[in-house]
């Protein structure tokens, strides 16, 4: 099945190295889980596109079907699904997230090198 909403998602992922599907906006997150991922990306100074799924019912369901993942937020790097809030948080704390960003050539503030 290729719903039109999948084409929109693929376009976003093709045009942006780091995409966060979230509830609310990066400036005004509407959910603690989304806010937590925004905070981590902000600490690392990773440029990302935040996509608010709340005003768009089609996207809200579509993004869950796209990756077969039932919850929001969802973080994608270079088109690849990284995880939700718990996974991103654990990866950040264990430096796996930083290693993955480096490997994929994403610029961020590397605190370990400071």
């Amino acid at each position, binding site marked *: 099945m290729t719903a039109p909403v999948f084409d929109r998602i693929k376009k976003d992922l093709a045009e942006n190295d780091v995409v966060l599907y979230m509830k609310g906006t990066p400036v005004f997150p509407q959910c603690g889980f989304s806010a937590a991922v925004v905070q981590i990306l902000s600490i690392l100074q990773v440029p990302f596109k935040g996509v608010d799924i709340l005003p768009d019912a089609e996207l809200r369901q579509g993004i869950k079907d796209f990756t077969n*993942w*039932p*919850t929001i937020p969802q973080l994608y790097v270079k088109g690849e*699904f990284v*995880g*939700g809030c*718990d996974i991103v948080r*654990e990866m950040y704390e264990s430096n796996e997230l930083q290693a993955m960003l480096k490997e994929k050539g994403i610029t961020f503030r590397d605190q370990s090198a400071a």
Partner: protein
Amino acid sequence: MAMDASEIERMIRAGIPGADVRIEDLRGDGDHYAAIVTAGAFVGKSRVMQHRMVQDALQGKLGTDLHALQIHTRTPDNTDKGTIQ
């Protein structure tokens, strides 16, 4: 819409045989939980795959009946990382 902690635990155990499951009611309100799941079945699997196994065990409850469930997956040789803040 909320779920009982024992029901969450039962469903995860049923879906991942042999798993050690610990449920914490984060706010004491019966609606915000953390599940710490330790299972040999997680060995060699990515975090995303481990979480999918827990999601599958919950049979669609996550994102519907269960809004706020933190999931922490561990392998048996790695249980010392199982603390949550």
